[in-house]
């Protein structure tokens, strides 16, 4: 294992996502490599920033109100929920100005998935943890939900190709 490979595995390792066959070589590398041990410490330092400010407080009676609204036809004083459809994307000030047209494509993708939420979720569940480090871990053709998923899958595959290219040696 080289340092580049070790670097990409440190996160999954500390997240408890590696099996022993994967963690063993990483540990051996860490024993031998001070640089990557620093990487581990750096990762732990980073994670200590993710703290919740305060406990969540759910307003009293929330569930009762929601249930009532649901069974009453959801119409009273509720934010209207538009149908899942792409809308022209509003580009905010700041960092977005150099992001052209394709803003929102992923959102449409996500929303597309939502429209078949349960089905899509079930299909994706089929990819197993044991395959996790194999290349091309994307949706296989036989796992593809039908119909409306087509466009979503296209987007997904584009993203996966792009992201897959980003991590070398996997």
């Amino acid at each position, binding site marked *: 294992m080289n340092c580049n490979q070790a670097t990409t595995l440190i996160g999954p390792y500390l997240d408890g996502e590696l099996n022993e066959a994967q963690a063993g070589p990483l540990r051996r590398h860490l024993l031998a490599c001070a640089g990557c041990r620093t990487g581990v410490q750096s990762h732990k330092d980073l994670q200590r920033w993710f703290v919740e400010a305060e406990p969540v407080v759910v307003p009293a009676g929330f569930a009762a109100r929601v*249930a009532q609204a649901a069974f009453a036809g959801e119409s009273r004083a509720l934010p209207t929920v538009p149908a899942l459809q792409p809308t022209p994307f509003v580009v905010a000030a700041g*960092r977005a100005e150099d992001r052209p047209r394709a803003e929102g494509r*992923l959102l449409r993708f*996500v929303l597309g998935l939502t429209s078949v939420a349960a089905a899509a979720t079930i299909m994706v569940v089929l990819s197993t943890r044991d395959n996790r480090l194999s290349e091309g871990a*994307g949706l296989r053709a036989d796992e593809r939900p039908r119909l409306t998923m087509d466009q979503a899958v296209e987007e997904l595959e584009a993203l996966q190709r792009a992201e897959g290219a980003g991590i070398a040696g996997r």
Partner: protein
Amino acid sequence: MEQEAASDAALVSETLAGNQASFQLLVERYETRVFALLRHYVKNASELEDLAQETFLKAYRRLDGFEGHSSFYTWIYRIGVNTALDHLKKRGRSPIASTDDPEVLAEPTQVEGRIAAPHAALERAEVARVAQAALEQLPEIFRTVLVLREYEELAYQDIADMLGISIGTVESRLFRARARFKQAVLELHPEYGADADED
């Protein structure tokens, strides 16, 4: 969670059969987690409650599509994330980086410098505020994986199911997201950088 699954499924069936109290129980069971998730996207309390309500109402409308093959919380989280992203989009906050956004596609470079762990003297609320400010700098696909992993502590498989992506994509997205987060903290607060010679 395993034991809850059957019970969730029962509540879902009862809700679909017209039992309002069963749906209320389902909401009560998950409301805290949904609020915790959504407050990473909105700060204002009434906005938060609206989003949470919207999430559960969407779930109610789609309940017949929930077949119990995935856990209910994965399903409701997924609706919550989509609801939050949709909300940000409507508010004009540049939320989603498209798949061919150069910022998203950029090589996951190692960020120069490290951030130190939060100093012991730093108030918890301040640590949370710094992290939240840094998260808000990130494209939403990165913010979302960090929220789901670092705050909600979901397994990669759950995140993958929820977002409809592969585990490999979860890993690479998290890798990039953490690098971006570090970069954002250092840009916002150079004083939290770790000294080069610190061990």
